[in-house]
């Protein structure tokens, strides 16, 4: 055994839990024999051991554990409370928007030309459709028709189509808005549209890949779950998984493909799970995803 081999093994002799940092581990016989005859290696070994031992004398004063525990408890309480109220950050954002914030700023939103016009149209067609539906149901139940109400199936279907088209128009207009919060509203509109057309799905996929705001992209992941049965949506999500660089989006997309059991994502997950430059949580999530898919 030559000197280089011996020196590479010297670190093995340093790990130990002896008090004061003593070199606790026994030195193997072959290393001992070499050190007994080689002055250079012996000196190197002594030097390492001395430095190792000396490091043990540099203590670090303990922290204020009680204060740290207090902060930890406060953090845990806040987290627990938050989790109880809202399950995930992105669904929270979407829900908050759909419930309160949209209504609170409705009048400001109405001032903008295209969405406002669409909203008015939506209200009109929505009202007519609602009336038509109610009229149809009542007419059916009581066996009579109101001559003034659009009660035929064709008329109802037409009104429904107009309502859907108007909702889509609002949504697509909002998705083009310069403000991220308006675009997030656009994503929210997609939840309200019954049987959305391909342009809605296409717009969501486009925003998922290209929108500069992470909240909007997260909202898109959520919104696209409705359409997870569609091959183009699955392909688009896998494509986004390959292109996304944001850890939170990557994790949301991993969750998506796992939930829908998308086998086409295996290659992307493999890459994510082994890319050392990525966020550790993303790698771990990708590994976890692979375990579920394979």
């Amino acid at each position: 055994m030559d000197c280089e081999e011996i020196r590479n093994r010297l670190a093995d002799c340093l790990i130990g839990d002896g008090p004061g940092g003593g070199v606790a581990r026994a030195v193997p016989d072959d290393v001992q024999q070499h050190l007994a005859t080689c002055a250079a290696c012996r000196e190197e070994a002594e030097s390492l051991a001395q430095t190792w031992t000396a490091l043990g004398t540099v203590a670090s004063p303990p922290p204020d554990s009680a204060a740290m525990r207090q902060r930890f408890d406060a953090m845990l309480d806040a987290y627990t409370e938050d989790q109880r109220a809202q399950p995930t950050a992105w669904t929270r954002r979407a829900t908050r928007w759909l419930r309160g914030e949209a209504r609170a700023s409705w009048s400001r939103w109405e001032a903008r030309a295209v969405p406002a016009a669409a909203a008015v149209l939506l209200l009109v067609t929505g009202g007519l459709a609602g009336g038509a539906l109610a009229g149809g149901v009542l007419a059916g139940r009581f066996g009579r028709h109101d001559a003034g109400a659009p009660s035929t199936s064709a008329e109802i279907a037409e009104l429904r189509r107009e309502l859907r088209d108007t909702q889509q128009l609002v949504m697509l207009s909002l998705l083009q808005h310069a403000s991220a919060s308006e675009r997030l509203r656009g994503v929210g509109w997609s939840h309200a549209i019954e049987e959305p057309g391909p342009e809605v799905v296409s717009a969501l996929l486009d925003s998922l890949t290209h929108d500069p705001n992470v909240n909007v992209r997260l909202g898109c992941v959520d919104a696209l779950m409705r359409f997870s049965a569609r091959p183009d949506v699955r392909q688009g999500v896998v494509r986004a998984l390959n292109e996304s660089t944001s850890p939170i989006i990557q994790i949301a997309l991993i969750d998506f493909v796992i939930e829908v059991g998308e086998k086409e994502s295996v290659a992307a997950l493999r890459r994510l799970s082994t890319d050392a430059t990525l966020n550790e949580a993303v790698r771990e999530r990708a590994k976890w995803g692979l375990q579920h898919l394979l």
Partner: protein
Amino acid sequence: MTDEALMLAVRDGQVGRLGQLFERYHMALFDFLARTTGDRAAAEDLVQDVFVRILKYRQTYRNDSRFETWVFRIARNARADYFKSQRATEQLPEGECDVPASGPGPAQQLELDQDARRLRRALMQLSEDKRELLVLARYRQMKYEHIAALLHVDQGVVKVRVHRALKELRALFLKAADGDPKTVSGDTEWIAKRSGTDLRIV
């Protein structure tokens, strides 16, 4: 209950169990972060950050993960973000240095205090990765195989790097000591004298 079992419970929704892991790990994490950043206040904040991240990423904890490796990986990431946001302190305040209280008399203790300060400074002069390696191996007494898993390198690489880091640390210490007449300058005496222990490697 093992660390891993506790973490699995946290992952599966019993977040209150994290308190037990905090009790078990906050000192170790603080020591690691304080020694590698050289900033105790930052280390306290970073420990909190580590536990926030545990909650945030708890779903990513796998059944077969070793908790210590996982949590130190999170701590390394938190520290990396900290370093990005501001430069690490290169030199610690003198008051931060500490040595065991018992043993030598007052005159010798003074000398030892000075040596310990120099050694701490030398440690802070090492590159971040070398300092981290020594802290993990020496102060956290983490096995090489676990350090290797944490750093995603081969175990043999860890051993070689520990060896090199110790040599560089010694050189830095001796360089600082050469400029101070009060320091014992003999190349093999300086630490043996301090520790009072046999060097059992030979």
